[in-house]
């Protein structure tokens, strides 16, 4: 009933609007303003252009500065600081171009509005000007490209040999985390071995898988390069850690990676922000299904000593009786296991170019 009333009101409003509109046209025909081609409205629109520029510009400036503090997620990685500088430098460059071009657009619109008796200036081309405004942006672009390229190759280059290795596996709708254990080698995994107690699909006939351990939180040491190896076991996901300025897709069938060096522990960041509940967060940033928006994990940056203590406390796969038992069953069913099928072999040929050293070996000698 109420819907019907609303509909009726809307229709009546529309009719009233239509009638008023018709009335306005008829009066303007009688008053003779209807046929005048360029009149008052031209001046009003020209004026509005100027008003829009001034008011809009002021509103933009105000809202930007008002929100500025909220739009900068705290930075906690080495490359993040460099990226931040590049971001705001580029913003300044495009900001200048923005102000100049928009100002010219609206000022010209106002200034060169129609005036009776004036004729536009017949000015069809000028090659010098064209060359100038081709070359200047080209030079600016070249500089930006060069800076971007330098940083990009540094960030995406090979991880240092002594990086701490963590593997993240995306699944609908959470993140699985594993560490290589004492031997510093991630064991073979195979998606055909996945079951309820073996989320990663560990191939436990591979010795290096036995001491791997899985966790729910991601712990990394401060001041030490961290190499994140990334997998997905169903659809695309993306590892996005805004505070570390890290992002990389998780692709089923194609392991990816990203390395970074955290600069601030969770506790330090809590103190700095005055927010005792602060945590570094990992968000999924590639649409992955119904609960995409809730696919989250927490990252804890520890002091190196705390990290080592935490690492030592974790219990390896071999201590997980459930997993060991169910592995036996699944691997027999699937006819898989070490040296079994090509699938397991393919998974074994990981993208590990470098052999990770003992946890924080460099720290230990320091």
């Amino acid at each position, binding site marked *: 009933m109420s819907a019907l009333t609303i509909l009726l009101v809307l229709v009546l409003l529309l009719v009233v609007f239509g009638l008023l509109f018709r009335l306005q046209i008829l009066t303007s025909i009688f008053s003779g303003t209807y046929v005048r081609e360029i009149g008052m409205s031209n001046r009003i629109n020209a004026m509005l252009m100027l008003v829009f520029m001034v008011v*809009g510009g002021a509103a933009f400036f105000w809202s930007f500065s008002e929100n500025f503090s909220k739009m900068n997620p705290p930075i906690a990685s080495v490359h993040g600081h460099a990226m931040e500088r590049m971001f705001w430098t580029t913003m300044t460059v495009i900001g200048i171009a923005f102000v100049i071009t928009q100002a010219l*657009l609206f000022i010209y619109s106002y200034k*060169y509005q129609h005036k009776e008796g004036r004729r*536009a200036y017949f000015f069809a081309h000028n090659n010098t000007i064209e060359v100038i405004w081709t070359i200047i942006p080209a030079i600016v672009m070249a500089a930006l490209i060069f800076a971007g390229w330098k940083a990009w*190759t540094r960030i995406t280059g090979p991880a240092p040999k002594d990086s701490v290795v963590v593997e993240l596996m995306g699944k609908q709708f959470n993140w699985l985390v594993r560490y290589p254990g004492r031997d510093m080698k991630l064991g073979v995994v195979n998606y055909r071995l996945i079951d309820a107690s073996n989320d990663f699909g560990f191939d436990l006939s591979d010795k290096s898988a036995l001491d791997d351990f899985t966790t729910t939180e991601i712990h990394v040491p401060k001041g030490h390069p961290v190499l994140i190896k990334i997998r997905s076991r169903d659809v695309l996901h993306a590892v996005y850690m805004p505070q570390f300025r890290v992002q990389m897709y998780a692709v089923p069938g194609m392991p990816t990676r990203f390395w970074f060096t955290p600069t601030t522990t969770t506790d330090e960041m809590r103190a700095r922000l005055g927010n005792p509940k602060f945590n570094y967060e990992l968000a999924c*940033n590639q649409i992955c299904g119904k609960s995409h928006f809730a696919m989250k994990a927490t990252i804890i940056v520890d002091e190196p000593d705390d990290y080592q203590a935490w690492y030592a406390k974790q219990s390896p796969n071999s201590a997980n009786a459930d997993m060991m038992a169910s592995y036996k069953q699944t691997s027999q069913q699937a006819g898989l296991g070490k040296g079994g099928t090509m699938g397991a072999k393919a998974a074994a040929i990981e993208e590990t170019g470098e052999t990770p050293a003992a946890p924080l070996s460099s720290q230990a000698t320091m």
Partner: protein
Amino acid sequence: MATNLPASQAQGGIGTAPVPTTEHADHLHEHDEHHDQHWLWKYVFSQDHKMIARQFLITGMLWAIIGGALSSLFRLQLGWPEATLEWLQPLLGKWIEGGKLNPEFYLALVTMHGTIMVFFVLTAGLSGTFSNFLIPLQVGARDMASGFMNMLSYWFFFLSSVIMFSSLFIETGPAASGWTIYPPLSALPQAISGSGMGMTMWLVSMAFFIVSQLLGGVNYVTTVINLRTRGMSMSKLPLTIWAFFLTAILGILSFPVLFAAALLLIFDRSFGTSFFLSDIYIAGQALHNQGGSPVLFQHLFWFLGHPEVYIVIMPAMGMVSEILATNARKPIFGYRAMIGSLIGISLLSFVVWAHHMFVTGMNPFLGSVFMFLTLIIAVPSGVKVFNWLATLWRGNIRFTAAMLFAIGFVSLFISGGLTGIILGNATLDIQMHNTYFVVAHFHLVMGSSAFFGLFAGVYHWFPKMFGRMMDEKLGYIHFWLTFVGVYLVFMPMHYVGIAGFPRRYYSWTGFDAFSQFADLNKFISAAAIIAFFGQFVFIFNFFYSIWRGRRATENPWHSTTLEWTTPIIPGHGNWPGEIPAVYRWPYDYSKPGAEADFIPQNVPYSQTASSNLPYERELED
């Protein structure tokens, strides 16, 4: 009929010298005979390019309303995540669960909004309308090269529309894996219910859509190359035609690649192949697929997807150039530079696709190459903006509704284009990828700008389409509402993006990092919904003016191009008499020494002795 075009007309080729024709008179009678066509052939299965253009326009408008309404629905969710949406139950039925929008349906809304706006509104509705309407009229042809293929182009689009529209109502919901339909999500119904029947319909619909685009594109290119009237060399073409021509070429070269991607995806979905699938364990089951690559799909998709954004924006650029020159009463500045930059953009648009994939696991070296190529595109784009500004400089501007939208286009194109310099930089894209910064960027630079181009085009060519004028005052209201609205929506969205808010999130409340902008999101939602309802001013104006608008004159804007030499409502065949020959470029506005402030293209130099420039004197006879 269109297929019996006079042979004498097909004397195109670049720089063809004017050839006198004598045969046109015979054909006049033939055209007159078509006046008493059955309405079915006149209004429905029409082969007249002008009718087909109107069909594309009105279908596109219906799609725009649907696409806009979908965005209002998901903006409600984003602005007021805590609110109950019970009142939408009559409309959305089971997609409202306990007063909340179903998160999968939210993704479906986002997906369909993108698909509809990019393909059905801004590709078919914009380029389909104006390429069809303006190419024959502005190059001086009686119709498209093949009227029949042109008709098929519309009806394939219609078929595609029907399928896509039906998919909104099926049990499992429409496609919901984002408009980019990345597999494996789009390949596996176990992963999301929209990837069942909804995705199948999406793919089938897009296949027909691509057929429609190709039929149209081949026609546009052929018409521009072969059916130009006497004297209409390529260097005398209006910039609109250059833009449509290059757009059609982009479409012909890139849409087949999307077709290939869609076909391979259909194979993966239905016939057990593994083009894009590998190592997948889902819904308690390990799939047999091995060796496929989801990244391969992204390459194929963006090989179309990137040129696609230029397919959307270039027709708007062409029309805006035309409208700015006409209403500033000034030649477009740097006509050849404008053509050159269009060609530059077209070429570059094919080699920048992987900038959508910097962080997808693609080799970082490729990232460097694509960053380089992507940022170069700023140069021709900049040239265009500077030329538009120089066109306004010392003009004598009439603010018609079309002109306002053209100026608005330039403003939005600048605002949205500049942030592309950030996103094209692979380093900065690590943080910005898939955040609201991207959403704000492309909504300004290709979404809103292209819409503004579309509106400018409708206001400007409405008199030629329907023989009546649209109401200017309503046009002004529509413009200011939309212009302010668009900025209020998308400027704050940049802030949200810089803060790292991920796109395609049903809600951000689960994250501390994304908790600070609840108010701003409310504001954006309110602005978006108001701006959407503002569009009904346009819809009203449009339909009111078709029947009740002020009657148009033959050339209401005092424009120079050929379409304004036709009768107020051109019949089938466009010119009742001989097709006018062309003698000069299309931008002789305010030429010193000339009587009027415009000289149409079909006026020979011999009649304008007082205004001819030195090199033009030789052409007088």
